[in-house]
């Protein structure tokens, strides 16, 4: 089996994985209705849905959007930040629940819908404007900041922040926190390592391998992340079903 075939399999596994996980998380979130937990799991659904959209964006490729490969990299990283921000909002709300003394501190239930709409609009914009925005993106990709790998570094840091919130969830939140914490920690660290790998291989050139090998290793971590997200979604669904 060639490396190209393995990369393709990795792509399909991760795409399908994020799609299935999105569906399951949405079903589980609906079970909690209009509640603080319903709000938290809706954020997780939005984040996982964005990961699915990222895989579609990558499959369409630079040629489809009429942009350079380096620009593709920037656009999907923007979506990656959105996905992680959604997870961050969800887990932050979950942690806040553990310290809420009254209903007012439970958080704004319904804010997840506003974020969902905003995320949808941003995704549509990202699918429409790449060729128009190419000169601006090119300025960044030609900059020292891009050469340093700022976009990879930011992804790595964001994943670590969300991961630390998850550790708190695991300690304080009973069965619900425990159900999703372990697989999501695996998913987030896989994504963090994926970006650390990109930083080392693409930006800093500490590891010198072909671009095909770089992509192959990336797909391994992406596949692990998607499988872990599916596991979290199934655990969440099983938990909601057991009620």
């Amino acid at each position, binding site marked *: 089996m060639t490396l190209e075939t393995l990369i393709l399999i990795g792509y399909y596994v991760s795409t399908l994985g994020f799609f299935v996980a999105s569906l399951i998380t949405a079903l589980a979130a609906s*079970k*909690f*209705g*209009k*509640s*603080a*937990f*319903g709000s938290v799991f809706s954020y997780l659904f939005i984040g996982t849905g964005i990961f699915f959209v990222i895989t579609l964006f990558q499959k369409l490729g630079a040629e489809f959007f009429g942009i350079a490969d380096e620009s593709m990299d920037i656009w999907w990283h923007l979506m990656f930040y959105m996905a992680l921000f959604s997870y961050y909002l969800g887990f932050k709300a979950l942690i806040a*629940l*553990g*310290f*809420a*003394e*009254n*209903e007012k501190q*439970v958080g704004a*239930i319904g804010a997840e819908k506003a974020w969902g709409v905003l995320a949808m609009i941003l995704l549509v914009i990202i699918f429409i404007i790449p060729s128009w925005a190419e000169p601006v993106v090119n300025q960044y990709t030609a900059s020292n900041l891009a050469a340093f790998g700022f976009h990879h570094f930011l992804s790595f840091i964001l994943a670590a922040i969300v991961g630390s919130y998850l550790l708190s969830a695991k300690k*304080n*939140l*009973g*069965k*619900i*926190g425990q159900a999703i914490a372990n697989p999501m920690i695996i998913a987030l660290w896989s994504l963090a390592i994926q970006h650390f790998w990109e930083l080392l291989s693409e930006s800093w050139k500490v590891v010198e391998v072909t671009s095909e090998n770089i992509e192959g290793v990336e797909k391994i971590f992406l596949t692990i992340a998607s499988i872990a997200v599916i596991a979290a979604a199934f655990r969440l669904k099983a938990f*909601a079903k057991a*009620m």
Partner: protein
Amino acid sequence: MSETEQYNALITEIIKKQSVILGPEIAILKARSVSGLMVDNDGKVTSVGTDPKETLQNLVDQYVELSGQIVKNALGSIFAKYPNININN
């Protein structure tokens, strides 16, 4: 207010607070799984059984098992209103 009425009111408040966190469907389902506790569709307690203290303890244990620290914090302000009623933490 009689002791039973106090338990009814306290447990109803707990279920209402849990409805905000877990959603009404799950909060009420979980309450109905407690032996002796009868709850209507709005989350209002209609009966606490023969041993209200044990019913209350079982209900709190169920919610704590489910969502840990969230419940412990949420219940503090409710129990403050009913100084005569205590349970094990």
